């Protein structure tokens, strides 16, 4: 798996489209990241924290019932829902917060949509003694009240963002703006493989642990690689994390599942790669949902974590190169999978992850006992109780 070029591009995608005030901060971050990545002591601390604080490695689990009626294919879940704070997000916040300490930054800043990244940042900030400010759209604050309470219990300040669509897109705008005023002492912890270089690369490197573990576990348990790896894609960090373990295994098919909302033929979805076009948002060139005039569109997904008009630039690169295939699952299909999976397997998946699970069942019908489908179960569904 490759790093981006020196200007932060994966093929034609990525780069650094931000105001000048942030360029020096991104340069400083890139230098610190490069030094940390080359330092075994940094990785030792990261892995120790993942083991003791997050509970890694997360297990893999073979589903016995969920797709048994349609296929004999082994269907295996990578259990990121078992992580502390309930999702894959914390792999990344641990890495970035440790880097912030190394850089001597005194505060953490984060955007959040569903609140999972905000909670994961708040938890790590509390553990390391770094104050955390979280920016969250006013509409998301209403939709995800439980996570707001958790962030506050963990000592974070949650700021309501009332501009624009009042969701993740605008929370991200606001986080960039606040960072521009505090670049000297504040580390901006971005929650997905998006943003200006080096964020998409750095976040992938911190989420790569998912794929590295899953590859080793699948080989140990089943003596072979998966035929297919499936993950949901909003910004795309859980997908890039698990894909990273298999990108160089050319025989393994990679599937990214976008939020089809009420159908990708209409306007109410969040399928940037399937129904969007190339543009610039939040600091990088990638696919996004936009009007003909280049205004970023409002999106819809029942899952707040996928409700985002952009997508990480490396996913755009994988789409163009054909290394991964992107599909969509609608709200209704995701809800059906959420309920079906809970009843068949005794696991409540996050609505985001339910998109990947729904597609896995579709794909299972075309696979047999010699294949193996691996799904990233990226988070647990407690936060979604009562919403579907």
């Amino acid at each position, binding site marked *: 798996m490759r790093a981006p070029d020196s200007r932060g591009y994966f093929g034609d995608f990525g780069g650094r489209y931000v105001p000048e005030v942030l360029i020096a901060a991104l340069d400083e971050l890139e230098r610190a990241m490069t030094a940390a990545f080359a330092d075994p002591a940094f990785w030792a601390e990261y892995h120790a924290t993942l083991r003791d604080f997050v509970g890694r490695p997360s297990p893999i689990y073979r589903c016995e019932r969920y797709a048994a009626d349609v296929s004999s294919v082994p269907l295996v879940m990578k259990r990121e829902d078992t992580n502390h704070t309930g999702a894959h997000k914390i792999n990344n916040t641990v890495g970035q917060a440790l880097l912030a300490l190394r850089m001597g930054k005194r505060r953490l800043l984060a955007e959040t949509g569903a609140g999972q990244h905000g909670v994961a940042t708040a938890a790590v900030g509390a553990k390391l003694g770094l104050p955390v400010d979280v920016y969250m759209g006013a509409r998301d604050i209403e939709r995800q009240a439980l996570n707001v309470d958790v962030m506050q219990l963990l000592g974070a300040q949650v700021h309501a963002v009332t501009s624009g669509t009042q969701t993740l897109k605008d929370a991200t705008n606001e986080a960039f703006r606040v960072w521009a005023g505090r670049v000297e002492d504040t580390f901006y912890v971005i929650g997905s493989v998006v943003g200006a270089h080096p964020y998409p690369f750095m976040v992938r490197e911190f989420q790569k642990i998912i794929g590295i573990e899953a590859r080793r576990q699948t080989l140990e348990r089943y003596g072979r690689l998966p035929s297919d790896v499936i993950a949901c894609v909003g910004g795309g960090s859980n997908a890039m994390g698990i894909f990273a373990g298999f990108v160089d295994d050319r025989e393994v098919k990679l599937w990214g599942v976008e939020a089809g909302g009420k159908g990708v033929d209409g306007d109410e979805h969040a399928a940037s790669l399937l129904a969007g076009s190339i543009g610039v948002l939040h600091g990088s060139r990638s696919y996004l949902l936009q009007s003909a*005039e280049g205004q970023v569109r409002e999106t819809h997904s029942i899952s707040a974590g996928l409700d985002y008009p952009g997508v990480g630039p490396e996913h755009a690169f994988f789409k163009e190169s054909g290394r991964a295939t992107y599909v969509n699952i609608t709200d209704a299909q995701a809800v059906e999978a959420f309920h079906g999976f809970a009843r068949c397997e005794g696991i409540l998946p996050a609505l985001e992850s339910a998109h990947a699970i729904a597609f896995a069942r579709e794909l299972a019908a075309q696979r047999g006992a010699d294949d193996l489908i691996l799904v990233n179960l990226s988070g647990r569904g407690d936060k979604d109780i009562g919403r579907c």
Partner: protein
Amino acid sequence: MLDGAFVRARREKRLAFIPYVMVGDPDLETTEAVLLALSDAGADVIELGVPYSDPLADGPTIAAAGQRALRSATHLREVLALAWRCRERCAPIVLFTYYNPVYQFGVERFAREAAAAGIAGAIVPDVALDESVELRAALQAQGLAMPLLVAPSTPQQRAVRIADAATGFVYVVSRLGVTGAGYAPDFAPLHRQLASLREVTNKPLAVGFGVSRPQDVRNVGLLADAIVVGSALIDSYAGTRAQAAAARVRDFVAPLIAALPVS
């Protein structure tokens, strides 16, 4: 066109005045009235803001003005049409636009049509030096300027490279953060920045972000060549339209223009 405006200000031994207006806030008729009022009042150059859904460099005032303008369906095409309509009655125009609307319009086509509309240049705040090569070349091919921004956080060697690549003028950001009248410029570091830029470039230095009151204008001092006022100007006519807005603008800019440092 820009050179002429700065030469005139220098000849008159004063700083140039560059107001910023969000086009279509709240409608095109108001913008046109405001543009003409600003030109009559003595604006040397006018920055025309192109509405954008996600303005990363802007604070609440300009972001909200952009939202109002989008509600009146103002996009790049409408901005170019307005500039063309006003071209003979108005101070030289520089667009202030984020990159994505330009990218969707087509970079070459943007440069061509902006030139045809009589526009003098374009400031693109999310295209810093490193990503600016293609856009700069396209604009230059049409005789348009592309001023680049220098921030307080910009290291000195980089500031020299930016000043070297900028055309029209160098836009010196007066403090960390985004646009808005809420925080005044950070004058001590600003003056150091201006002094060090002055040593390496003869290009005009325009100071913006947070310049909102006559005392800010005075405090920028003679190391700069121009001041940019945006958010405070937008606030001055919020809630009014057309000629009523123009009257508010005339009242608002008179003391600012009177406060322009004179050598």
